[in-house]
């Protein structure tokens, strides 16, 4: 096993070796530190790397395991956290330059849960400033897609998607309000889930869209994703909106086939749209695989999902702006990126009557999604109608109304926002590559708290395909940029 093979292993594979004492957590951490040192000058997927702390904890884990005190499949496994998720003494920058640490000593419950399971914090992942997904200029370097640095790595939990895809860490916790986990998962070819609102404690995440924010993992396989969610899901007295429903054992629901599973293919988020030829080809192959596994697939129309984008921007953004206005926008306007500050300012000016009407609109979208989920076990959509865009095309143009409106209605948002405003779980699963070797994914959404169904479908699909076994060849994709930077 060479260093690259180890870096790209799934958590499940790494855990087996650690449990059998054939792999030391110290060696695993060091492998990732070496790769970060080599590649992250181009990828910019980390803001803080806590090497000394991580190595110290890895040595402790190694000693504990040697003594027979193995905690389980996350013991000794390194993880990253989007830099808006608090991590005690390790600073939380929000990818901002307003202050060096917004964390105030807090540790997010999701982070504590992972650490209690034996996982080791490797560092904090780069992101769009304040997680708003509208950064034009990045204060900590612009994250790059490891498959092709000229293509977008998508928005918000960007460093989390990049670092997991590039084999710089085993998993990373992201945050998804409108698609900030699923988007980077899609663009970088990894698995990303938005859990049901309330399934994972929001405590310690610095995020103010109080009706939509979720914390969850990005991983290289569906099974890994279920493993990490298993560790962080559940009621938390520190989050009054977290749910006390029991958390099922997700791995117990995995099946080789999907016999009896009824899937609804949402027209407005797939076949009913103008699709890039590579995406259309991928969708057809994906549906063939799902059918070959025994699932039935029927088209379903959800016409109200087309309103999801304004509904989110008129509700969650004002919720965030209500906090940012007093604390940061008024006193630190010039220290914000122009994309972030103008988005937050516009949100701060949304009249309360419009906010209320938009919250009513979200109920209508949710009801339509629920109605469909009464008929189907899960809904299937694309993650985008086209592959990841060239970077220059993915950045918001701020000087023309037409550009803004077009961007709002097209692209990833129309595929991710509907399930966010409806507060149902959804997951992005890699399902193909373009002729230029850029990742593409499809999305599975399920009833509230039925993450198990999404994992069952995603896992069966993964076992029937080989997409999850493909990883970027960094020497090929980043080598020239690295060489050029060194000259």
């Amino acid at each position, binding site marked *: 096993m060479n260093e690259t093979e180890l870096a790209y292993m799934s958590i499940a594979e790494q855990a087996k070796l650690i449990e059998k004492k054939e792999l030391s957590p110290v060696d695993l951490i060091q492998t990732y530190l070496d790769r970060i040192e080599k590649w992250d000058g181009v990828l910019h997927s980390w803001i803080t790397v806590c090497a000394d702390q991580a190595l110290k904890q890895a040595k402790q884990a190694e000693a504990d395991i040697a003594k027979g005190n193995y905690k389980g499949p996350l013991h000794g496994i390194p993880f990253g956290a989007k830099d808006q998720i608090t991590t005690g003494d390790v600073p939380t920058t929000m990818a901002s330059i307003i202050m060096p640490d917004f964390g105030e000593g807090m540790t997010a419950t999701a982070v504590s849960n992972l650490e209690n399971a034996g996982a080791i914090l490797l560092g904090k992942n780069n992101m769009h400033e304040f997680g708003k997904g509208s950064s034009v200029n990045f204060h900590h370097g612009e994250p790059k897609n490891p498959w092709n640095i000229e293509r977008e790595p998508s928005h918000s939990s960007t460093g989390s998607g990049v670092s997991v895809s590039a084999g710089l860490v085993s998993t990373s916790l992201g945050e998804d309000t409108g698609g900030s986990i699923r988007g980077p998962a899609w663009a970088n070819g990894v698995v990303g889930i938005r859990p049901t609102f309330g399934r994972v404690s929001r405590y310690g995440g610095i995020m103010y869209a109080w009706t939509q924010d979720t914390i969850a993992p990005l991983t290289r396989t569906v099974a890994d994703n279920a493993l990490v969610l298993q560790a962080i899901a559940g009621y938390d007295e520190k989050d009054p909106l977290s749910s006390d429903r029991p958390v099922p054992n997700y791995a117990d629901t995995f099946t080789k086939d999907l016999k009896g599973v009824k899937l609804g293919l949402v027209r407005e988020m797939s076949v009913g749209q103008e699709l890039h030829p590579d995406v259309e080809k991928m969708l057809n192959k994906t549906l063939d695989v799902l059918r070959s596994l025994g699932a039935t697939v029927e088209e379903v129309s959800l016409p109200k999902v087309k309103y999801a984008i304004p*509904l989110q921007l008129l509700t969650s953004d004002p919720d965030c702006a209500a906090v940012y206005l007093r604390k940061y926008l008024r006193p630190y306007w010039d220290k914000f990126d122009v994309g972030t500050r103008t988005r937050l*300012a516009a949100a701060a000016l949304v009249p309360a009557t419009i906010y209320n009407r938009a919250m*009513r609109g*979200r109920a209508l979208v949710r009801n339509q999604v629920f109605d469909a989920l009464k008929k189907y076990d899960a809904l299937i959509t694309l993650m985008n109608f086209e592959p990841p865009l060239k970077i220059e095309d993915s950045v918001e143009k701020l000087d023309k109304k037409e550009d803004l409106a077009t961007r709002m209605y097209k692209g990833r948002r129309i595929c991710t926002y509907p399930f966010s405003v409806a*507060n149902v779980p959804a997951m992005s699963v890699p399902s193909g590559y373009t002729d230029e070797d850029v990742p593409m994914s499809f999305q599975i959404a399920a009833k509230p708290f039925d993450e198990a169904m999404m994992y069952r479908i995603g896992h069966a699909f993964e076992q029937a395909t080989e997409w999850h076994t493909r990883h970027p060849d960094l020497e090929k994709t980043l080598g020239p940029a690295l060489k050029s930077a060194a000259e």
Partner: protein
Amino acid sequence: MDLTKDDVRNLAKAINLDIPEGDLNTVALRLSSLIEMMDQLEKDLGDELDNVDPIPPVYPREEF
């Protein structure tokens, strides 16, 4: 709806936010786009919006 820079400046005054001249146009474009989309939604679904409660973030019932 096309909000002008003056419109935005005046709205911002109500929340004690001083938006620099260089950013006013972008904020105006963003807010105009959002309100325009909401206008369309009102045209399409206005009656339905009157007859539904705003969304609660959590689920009050066991059945979905």
